[in-house]
């Protein structure tokens, strides 16, 4: 996780070190890969991405069609149409907007369209909240998209570039979401190394003729009706494509590393090798604050570590198992809830299943925190390490989720 501190190898690739919010970093990446069509509808905290893109288009810095649609449902629908017609397409949304898109999310992956979408995560109504968490993302996790969760503005910039490569790879052909903390990242200005767009475009070459598109010279029917005789097979192709996209995801990242000097693993550990107590996190605020807490705990002799999940779908189960097998107790910090589930942390369930499928049985704690941007203090994470110590001693997983910070 320390790679963010390193400067990429100097080969004239970084043209500027900019101070960008994560939303602006995403817009910058979208410009640098030279998309053809942007279709989007404004929603907090996504809005500044599309404002910036509209500005790029208005200034002639990005040669694209900007479709200011009348709803998120139409945003993704227009993206589907444009992608099916062979364009490189981007959209972005949050929260209620992502929910409104839900129907088309399944269709975009089912039709194997390489759309890239940014999702600064946000709480879902009711009560209405514009603030950040990951409830929106968790609600759409089963729609067949590849999902990354970035933890810095730099990573979001890099990941959008990687996302287009992965999405358009003929072995994948799936839509990709790049998510990150609403507000805590989307509106936070941070240093971002911006690359030479020529190099970015070399890295994301246009792939013509690798997939059938809407073209009168070669008429194709997209979105046919499948009877029970056919639905299962066509659906399974998408399931399999998502599962096997992992190879391409790794390959693209290692090429990205070669070209730009940065690399991100599906799970990233910090002080993890000898850690007894591990907080599993995703996103920026939870990860970085947990990391500060881990440093403090280490200063006091507790072997604390952080494991961040960067690739959420396809879920990197084996990677997690490898890293977590030596821990004494594990907590998963969820900024989302699955009400009525056996235990309420949605990612907790994924981690728990991953470990148990591999025969690894550790005391585990499901932590819900940071809903609607309820402040997650470093001291909260610090406290969790000591809870984990007690849990390890006890040897049993608590049967209830811990709703941290709840009055």
């Amino acid at each position: 996780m320390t790679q963010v501190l390193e400067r990429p190898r100097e080969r004239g690739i970084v043209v500027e070190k900019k101070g960008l919010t994560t939303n602006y970093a995403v817009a910058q990446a979208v410009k640098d890969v030279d998309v053809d069509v942007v279709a989007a509808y404004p929603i907090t905290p996504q809005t500044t991405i599309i404002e910036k893109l509209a500005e790029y288009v208005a200034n002639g810095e990005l040669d694209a069609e900007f479709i200011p649609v009348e709803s998120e449902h139409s945003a993704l629908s227009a993206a589907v149409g444009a992608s099916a017609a062979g364009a490189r397409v981007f959209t972005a949304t949050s929260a209620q907007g992502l929910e409104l898109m839900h129907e088309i999310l399944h269709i975009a992956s089912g039709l194997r369209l390489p759309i890239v979408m940014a999702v600064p995560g946000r709480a879902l109504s009711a009560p209405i909240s514009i603030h950040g968490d990951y409830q929106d993302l968790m609600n759409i996790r089963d729609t067949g998209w590849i999902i990354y969760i970035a933890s810095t503005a730099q990573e979001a910039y890099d990941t959008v570039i990687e996302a287009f490569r992965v999405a358009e790879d003929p072995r994948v052909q799936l839509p990709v979401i790049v998510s990150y903390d609403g507000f805590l990242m989307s509106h936070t200005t941070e240093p971002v190394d911006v690359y030479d767009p020529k190099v970015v475009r070399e890295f994301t070459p246009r792939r013509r003729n690798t997939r059938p598109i809407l073209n009168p010279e070669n008429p194709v029917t997209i979105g046919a009706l499948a009877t029970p005789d056919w639905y299962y097979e066509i659906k399974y192709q998408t399931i399999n494509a998502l599962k096997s996209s992992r190879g391409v995801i790794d390959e693209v990242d290692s090429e990205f590393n070669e070209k730009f000097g940065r690399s991100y693993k599906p799970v990233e550990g910090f002080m993890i090798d000898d850690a007894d107590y591990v907080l599993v996190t995703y996103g920026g605020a939870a990860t970085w604050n947990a990391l500060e807490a881990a440093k403090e705990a280490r200063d006091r002799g507790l072997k604390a570590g952080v494991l961040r999940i960067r690739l959420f779908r396809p879920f990197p189960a084996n990677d997690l198992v490898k890293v977590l097998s030596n821990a004494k107790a594990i907590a998963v910090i969820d900024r989302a809830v699955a009400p009525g589930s056996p235990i309420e942390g949605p990612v907790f369930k994924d981690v728990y299943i991953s470990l148990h499928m591999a025969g690894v049985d550790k005391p585990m704690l499901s932590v819900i925190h940071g809903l609607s941007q309820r402040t997650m203090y470093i001291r909260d994470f610090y406290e969790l390490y000591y809870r984990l110590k007690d849990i390890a001693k006890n040897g049993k997983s608590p049967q209830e989720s811990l709703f941290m910070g709840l009055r």
Partner: protein
Amino acid sequence: MAKQVKVGIRTIWDVPKEEYFGPGQLTCAGCGPSLAVRLMLKAAGPNTIIANATGCIEVTSTQYPYTAWAVPYIHVAFENAAAVASGIEAAIKALNRKGIANTKAKVIALAGDGGTYDIGIQALSGMLERGHGVLYVLYDNEAYMNTGIQRSGGTPRFAWTTTSPVGSKIRGKVQSKKDIMSIVIAHRVPYAATASIAYPIDFMSKVKKALDALDEGPAFLHVFAPCPPGWRIDESKTVEIARLAVDTGVFPLYEWDHGKFRLNPPSNAHIDKSKRKPLINYIKPQGRFAHLKEDEIKAMEAEIDSYWDYLTRLLKAFG
């Protein structure tokens, strides 16, 4: 690249022989919408991309692994044909401008009355307001036929459907048919017109006119296409009923052409009510109107007269 058909369609012998839709689609025998699509594509030619809403035409024309379409076709969902078409049009524009592609293909959004009047109206309005160069073709069979005859915003008043049943207290649909054309025209589109499968030459020449207008913005065609099972008519009567709809003044043929309003033959004679055929000729063969009593037929007629009054005023203002 395939050539766009350039010849105008003035007589039956101008109708191109090429077939771009079917046969082998699984529409009901005597399907009005199926004929509408066949005629529409004859006029549009092969350089056309279709974005189809969920509906009768979609489920019957693309049952995997077979397609009835000879032109590029996409179906995404029910409410978003206009949005999908917007995306395709934008993609073509961007790719052509950037030199990545070079296509002259025209985009047609195709939807039924449910996908247009009701669930799709937001996407339609958005597409019209943004000014995409897309032809939106509404094939109107006046109810949700694909799901088994439920009322839509396009179902006429008094009509029986499974969700506007004829009961002892409520007899058929209570509300009137939505005036979709006025809604579309209010978006100040360059070209919008009504058409009928019973008047194919008029319909096909309107398709051509509409496609020619796409450089300036969106165009809209409202095509009347009866449904034998839904209307409870004999399947041989589809065209005859469609013709009666025009001839009785129920479904007037007109166009909104760059700010000018024009009634087309034979409707241009129908401001004079005596030139219209009696309404009963249209109602009587249709099972969906079988329950109508004298006063209900009168009310229906009054509604039609009032619509004609509105059209007459439009003609005065914009003719």
